[in-house]
């Protein structure tokens, strides 16, 4: 089965600093892969390079079978993302913002699509409101609606439930799972929320200081580190407290 994402020796240097350092991984179709790591681990940098927003210093990236450095426009219509590091124009209404992006992505039947997403993500009540007047949680849901407008085959999500209350966050996770089941899409998720990763991800890549330090299914990582939950595994990795039992190597 061809990987949806194939990354080989990906490196991003800012002067002497290696934000991402010889990272290689693949993500198979229909899976949800979690990219975990502390601040500065290289998660957002990796996602930016997958989208072609950031040019790597070295390495190769294939997304949906295309070399993203040479032919990014062949795939961008089938990919989408949300991230707390980017925003939408505050003075436009939610409806206008979504309508503009639906048009940019060439979405047919855009108004029904926007209405449907608005209902699913519980933003229908403020479609006519200025985006800038929304709460942080409402903005996060609008950003997610924008990311789903084109029914992406690959969805890149950077902290998708940041700023959401536990109830809404839980419903969004359920929605993402349902979306994946319905469309067969592949999700790559960067998150600090271990509960979210355990619930959504079939595969987890652990990053620290720009490198991949471990990888596996959530269950295997728990066994490997002898921990009860991913949060403890995350802390072990973040604080370099890798257990002897974990030294047996990463999953293939």
């Amino acid at each position, binding site marked *: 089965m061809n990987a949806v994402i194939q990354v080989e020796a990906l490196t991003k240097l*800012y002067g002497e600093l290696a934000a991402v350092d010889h990272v290689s991984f693949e993500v198979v179709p229909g899976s949800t892969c979690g990219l975990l790591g502390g601040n500065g681990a290289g998660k957002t940098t990796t996602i*930016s390079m997958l989208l*072609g*927003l950031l040019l790597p210093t070295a390495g190769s990236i294939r997304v949906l079978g295309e070399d993203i450095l040479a032919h990014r426009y062949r795939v961008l219509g089938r990919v989408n993302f949300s*991230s707390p*590091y980017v*925003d939408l124009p505050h003075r436009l209404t939610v409806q206008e913002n979504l309508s503009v992006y639906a048009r*940019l*992505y*060439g979405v047919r039947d855009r108004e029904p699509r926007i209405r449907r997403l608005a209902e699913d993500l519980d933003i229908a009540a403020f479609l006519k409101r200025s985006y800038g007047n929304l709460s942080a949680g409402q903005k996060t849901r609008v950003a997610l609606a924008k990311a789903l407008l084109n029914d992406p085959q690959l969805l890149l999500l950077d902290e998708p439930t940041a700023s959401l209350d536990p109830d809404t966050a839980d419903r969004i996770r359920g929605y993402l799972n349902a979306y994946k089941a319905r469309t067969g899409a592949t999700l790559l998720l960067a998150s600090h929320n271990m509960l979210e990763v355990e619930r959504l991800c079939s595969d987890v890549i652990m990053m620290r200081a720009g490198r991949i330090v471990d990888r596996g299914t959530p269950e295997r990582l728990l066994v490997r580190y002898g921990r009860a939950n991913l949060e403890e595994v995350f802390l072990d990795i973040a604080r370099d407290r890798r257990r002897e039992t974990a030294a047996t190597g990463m999953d293939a």
Partner: protein
Amino acid sequence: MSSTDRAFSPARIGVMVLRYIYLLRRSWPRVLELAYWPTMQMILWGFISQFMRTNSSWLAQASGVLLAGVLLWDVMFRGQLGVSTVFFEEMYSRNLGHLFASPLRPYELVCALLTISLIRTLIGVGGAALLAIPLYHYSIFSLGLPLLTFFVNLLVMGWSIGLLVSGLVLRYGLGAENLAWVAIFAVAPVSGIYYPVAVLPDWLQVVAHLLPASYVFEGMRAVLFEHVFRTDLFVRAVALNIVYLGFGIAVFLGVFRAARRRGLLINVGE
């Protein structure tokens, strides 16, 4: 080939223009501001013209020369601001990441910026030009067809400077946004807006002759004083503008690529 695969899509340009119109529509003070400065300039220079017409034989020969100068100068100024300030809005709203993760090409954004600049310039300067008719009994439209050539040339020069400024602000951050307000004034003294280029010192005349605007304003005076359209001046302005616009676009797209190397599309700010 799907619509998102097309290397050049007028539809995507249209969407971006629509978005800028949404932005404009959402803020009536901004619409008002578009016409405010050109109108203030026109009123000020209108009274100066009225006073000087009776005290200057030069002005008496063509009383509209100062008003035509100020209105045409504003075409260039508004043209530049129409590109750079609209681009800054993308930076203020941290929206570049969303835009360029979509099928939108950078050169399509450039086309959209130029289009909205034209619309904003027409609103801003058009209003002032119309107001000059009842206020001073002067219609810039009396310049006839040459007015169109002057307008296009000055607009294109404004676009070129606007793209250059936008590129610099993308590279150096919003801390450099004041460039948008000061850049064009650097060329004002040598553009021959209110006086012939011949009054400048020799070395400044050399500089003036490198600017498309100087040929436009010389051409404007030729129409007003001599009632002739100077094709030679028009051709020089067009030739220089082709170089200017090419340079402006190349700098903007070059900086855009550098921004992808430096991660500026995700992290923009001061």
